[in-house]
């Protein structure tokens, strides 16, 4: 649970659920929008992580 990836996934779940409920009214739309948001968070996080990898701290 204390891994970067694990915490990012938990954060993404919470934020995706909240935004899906905020921005869509129909439960089916909420599920699809939430899943897309979650996937977007995860992919963006991993891609950005690898892009920053070569940079010195």
């Amino acid at each position, binding site marked *: *649970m*204390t891994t970067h990836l694990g*915490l990012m996934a*938990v*954060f993404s779940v*919470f*934020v995706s*659920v*909240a*935004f899906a*409920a*905020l921005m*869509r*009214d*129909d*439960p089916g*739309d909420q599920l699809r929008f939430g899943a897309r948001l979650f996937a977007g968070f995860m992919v963006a996080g991993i891609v950005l992580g690898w892009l920053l990898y070569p940079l010195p701290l």
Partner: protein
Amino acid sequence: MRATAAERTQTTTNPYLICAAAWLVPGAGHLWLGRRQKGLTFLITLTAMFAFGLWIEGRLFPFDVTQPLVALSAFGDIGIGVPYFIAKGFSAGAGRVVAITYEYGNAFIIVAGLLNMLTVLDAFDIAQGRK
């Protein structure tokens, strides 16, 4: 999906009262306005997010205006409403800077508060008949 014209009805209750309830208890504004599914989703999700942030050793920041970023974080923290005061009452949220999850905990707590502020605005729009 946008609400239909028939669903969009302006409530007779003072929208500012609904906003206050929505701020104090996450999802309360939507529950008050009859949006049960959304209200319960916000209540469970935002409260759990805040509690999770505390559990992984995030900090509830003090209102210190001499440090603008700390004050902004405190503003975000308090956005969650009653759970913030309950946590303060139990002396939770001391934060442990050396914990590996400290910064993550802060992010969870602050974002839960900011998301609750968005739900307050959403409840206001619904109360005004805009959604």
